[in-house]
């Protein structure tokens, strides 16, 4: 099914002669379709089973993230960023905080850098697991879905221990974090890692060499490298095309330049490459977290500047200066000098960029987010034109569209 080229259909005279009549069909797939995780509608123009044209219709989850940020202080935007990519909210938190810190021109503490790396990688694992599990589910491998989601559940429990919530974390603050990692983190992580290793092994056993699964994935959803770059695709999608680009490697932020890790790249740029890259990146993330826990120094997780971060609670209770700094920060919001920055981090699906314009007041003048999967979905018509409709399902899965992020 996968390698079959598009068959040229019969002319009208031939159809009349045989008595067979074909016509183009317009099919609405979505907005709530079991095979499209996330709320999105495709309007397909079909000729038989071949997709002649495709029009993705996004915006069903649009809630005005950018407009809301213009009416909130810089700190208030953290709960909004949690809801961008709801599979990896820590990465959004970190990306937004790094953007504001770049605009402020401040340097965070060493321990904070390590903690932010740990939580980013933790949620990269969770995002990749969600993608792998959903892909398998939609191609019929329900057991793989259960194993993947079981591991993700354990990561959520760990997340809850870190910050008190499973999904809506709002853990990172400008200039630091709300709190240090809990003391039990390293032990708990060892437990999660052991179960994760076991589940990844099982997943590999179930579908790693299974022809039923591989036939659906191999040689489907191919986009050539030039077009992918022209569309602005990044992340596992671009690495599957063989382009050695990762923001963590090209412009290292936090502590990624101190860690020992490799960047898996594919060769063909098909769905199976993207699937394998995500599996390999999970292993890399596990090793990165282990290295971070080993290297992590002691120390504070917030910078010592009361114009940016809230003072410690015991000083607020007991000294008038800390109380004043506390009140000024809460009531007026964080004052950011005028200017504009574009800050970029590696999200789970590619480059996650925040473009922030400040006019010097306590509220941002403009916050724009560059969601990684937005450019991948924009390239979807190019990938799918002339292909079969059943290849749309695995392709859309490995693109890993996240509704909250693309619709903002």
């Amino acid at each position, binding site marked *: 099914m996968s390698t079959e080229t598009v068959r040229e259909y019969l002319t009208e005279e031939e159809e009349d002669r045989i008595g067979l009549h074909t016509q183009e069909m317009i099919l609405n797939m979505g907005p709530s379709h079991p095979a499209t995780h996330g709320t999105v509608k495709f309007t397909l123009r079909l000729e038989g089973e071949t997709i002649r044209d495709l029009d993705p219709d996004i915006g069903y989850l649009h809630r005005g993230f950018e407009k809301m940020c213009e009416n909130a202080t810089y700190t208030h935007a953290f*709960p909004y960023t949690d809801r961008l990519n709801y599979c990896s909210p820590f990465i959004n938190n970190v990306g937004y905080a790094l953007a504001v810190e770049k605009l402020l021109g401040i340097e965070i503490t060493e321990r904070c850098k390590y903690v932010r790396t740990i939580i980013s990688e933790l949620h990269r694992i969770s995002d990749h697991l969600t993608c792998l599990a959903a892909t398998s589910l939609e191609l019929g491998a329900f057991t793989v879905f259960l194993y993947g989601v079981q591991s993700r559940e354990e990561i959520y429990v760990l997340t*809850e221990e870190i910050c008190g919530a499973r999904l809506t974390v709002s853990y990172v603050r400008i200039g630091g974090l709300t709190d240090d990692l809990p003391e039990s983190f390293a032990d708990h992580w060892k437990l999660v890692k052991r179960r994760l290793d076991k589940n990844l092994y099982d997943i590999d056993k179930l579908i790693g060499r299974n022809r039923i699964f591989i036939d659906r994935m191999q040689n489907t959803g191919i986009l050539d490298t030039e077009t992918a770059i022209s569309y602005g695709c990044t992340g596992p999608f671009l690495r599957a095309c063989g382009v050695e680009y990762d923001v963590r490697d090209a412009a290292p932020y936090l502590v990624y330049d101190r860690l020992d890790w490799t960047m898996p790249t594919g060769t063909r740029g098909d769905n199976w490459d993207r699937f394998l890259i995500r599996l390999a990146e999970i292993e890399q993330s596990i090793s990165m977290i282990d290295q971070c826990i080993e290297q992590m120094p002691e120390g504070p997780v917030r910078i010592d500047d009361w114009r940016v971060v809230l003072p410690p609670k015991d000083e607020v209770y007991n000294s008038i200066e*800390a109380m004043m700094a506390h009140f000024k920060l809460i009531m007026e919001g964080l004052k950011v000098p005028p200017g504009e920055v574009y800050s970029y981090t590696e999200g789970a699906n590619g480059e996650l960029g925040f473009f922030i314009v400040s006019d010097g007041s306590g509220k941002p003048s403009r916050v724009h987010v560059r969601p990684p999967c937005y450019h991948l979905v924009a390239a979807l018509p190019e990938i799918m034109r002339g292909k079969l409709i059943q290849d749309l399902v695995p392709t859309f899965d490995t693109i890993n569209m996240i509704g909250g992020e693309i619709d903002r």
Partner: protein
Amino acid sequence: MKQPLRPKSERAKPFERREMTFAEKLFYPAIWEGLKVTTKHLVENIFGRKHTVTLEYPEVQRPYPERFRGQHRLMQRDDGSPRCVACMCCSTACPSNCITIVAGERPEETIEKFPMRFEIDLLKCIYCGMCVEACPCDAIRMDSGVHPKPTYNRQAAIIDKEGLLAAGAKTIATQGGTFGSRVAGHLKKHI
């Protein structure tokens, strides 16, 4: 043809893709391997609950972690009155505007204000914990460990001051001391 320019990285490691062997092309080995995995899980789950991840809710409940952000509570002074001084920090810091405070005067004491009304609309609340972070006198906390309960009408989701205080307790946080040296050093640095 000109070779297109591509980024080069030392970290990059292209992985090899193995073509399927004849045995794998026959479908059966993969099916057999898969059945082995699922059967192992089945046996493990029947003869021992060590690997089971599900819980028999509600008889068995997972304990919430220490930092769990649950339903709010208002802490009390030694005489049982609320510690809140109606400074409006929490309602300002709240991203979803779910806290309503009406301040009242208390002339006979050194503390001038107290909340006449203190209501939290749990339907609006997003449990981000920013009110707890913003409170300068340890009055509001989210450490009750109570998961927000569903209600039959919207009015029941608004908890008032009495409800919040009933869940609260006396706190040992002290206020009004001096924190001389560190604060002075800090001020010298920034002001």
